[in-house]
């Protein structure tokens, strides 16, 4: 995928046993050079414009839309209750209703939020230097494995990992040690798609994030 901006997204691996169960599950990722020290007023304005479009009734009806529905159904398939562990779009919408706005935090988190709001597809970021050469993918944990930050994970959990580390539980928080920090110059962005989410939405979500982060 190349669209003006100089980046190309790579499909991540999916463990065959996981793929057999969830044929629509996929991960797309890329690395991009960034300068995280700067906050963009333009990005804040875009978030404000999105915030103006959210109403309570729309948030309630959100779950009937195709992409949120696909993520909600997938959450149930993998043992998550979407009314407890909300899907990312609903989580963002609920926070917007509670706070009255999409609070701008830093350039990276604003860009990830923008990607989510514009496409409905969640995007996560890792410190680019922490990703092993084989790239990212989705697999199940084996016995006695742990997150990169040290948190133990029982066997059979779905995680985002590379050849060396488990970076995050699937749809969970990225391990603290692998999150981008102020000195990060290269981030790895990844989006996770499920059955019912068109691939173009994943590409679009990554593209929106890269475009929002601007030239590194």
């Amino acid at each position, binding site marked *: 995928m190349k669209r003006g901006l100089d980046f190309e997204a790579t499909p991540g691996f999916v463990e065959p*046993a*996981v793929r*057999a*169960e969830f044929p629509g599950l996929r991960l797309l990722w890329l690395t991009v050079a960034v300068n995280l020290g700067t906050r963009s007023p333009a990005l804040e304005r875009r978030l404000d414009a999105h915030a103006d479009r959210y109403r309570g*009734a729309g948030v*309630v*009806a959100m*779950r*009937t839309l195709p992409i949120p*529905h696909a993520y*909600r*159904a997938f*959450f*149930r*398939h*993998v*043992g*998550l*209750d*979407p*009314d*407890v*562990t909300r899907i990312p779009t609903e989580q963002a919408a609920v926070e917007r209703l509670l706070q009255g706005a999409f609070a701008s935090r830093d350039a990276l988190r604003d860009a990830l939020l923008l990607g989510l709001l514009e496409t409905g597809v969640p995007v996560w970021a890792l410190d680019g230097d922490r990703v092993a050469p084989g790239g990212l993918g989705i697999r*199940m944990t084996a016995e006695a494995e742990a997150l990169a930050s040290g948190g133990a*994970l*029982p066997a*059979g*959990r*779905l995680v985002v990992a590379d050849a060396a580390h488990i970076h995050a*539980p*699937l*749809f*969970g928080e990225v391990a603290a040690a692998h999150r981008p920090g102020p000195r990060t110059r290269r981030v790895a962005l990844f989006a996770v798609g499920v059955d*019912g989410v068109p691939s173009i939405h994943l590409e679009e979500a990554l593209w929106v994030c890269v475009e929002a982060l601007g030239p590194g």
Partner: protein
Amino acid sequence: MELQELDIVAEPVLVEDPELAARRSLRAQIARLEGQLAEALVTSFAQSIEGLEPTSCAPRAHARMLDLGELECVRDELAERVHASRARIAEAAEAQAASRIRLEQMRLEPGRHRFTRVSCRELGERGCGVWEVRPRLGLIGMLMGWWQLKLSSGCPLARGRELRSRPP
């Protein structure tokens, strides 16, 4: 007529693991039920029906592969919730229909429904207005039998007078 010999190579038949097929079928059912539950919630919201808010006490967890039994549990729980939601919506719809009929009767014959009240909420409408049969011109109307149906303007304050006057 010339006959030709064709080489027909039989395609290998792939037999899917029956348990995998069962899990796939359960996932399809779960996705369908999730959609139905979402529609029920939206319907209840649109008709101001209370008591259908998602109330789950399941703990937060990590994504994992569910086995057949666990998928069946998820499916059964969702099916129960969809059934309960639809029953609640039907019950509320019946009550709202009865309220609308009562309101119509109040409109047609106000004198036979003196001081009867029907709130907008009972009609499935938003707002806190109340339809009430009241005497025209107060006491004079009561004595003369002049009755009319009036709609109160609802709460003047978003939170009501009581909450506002309550000390912090």
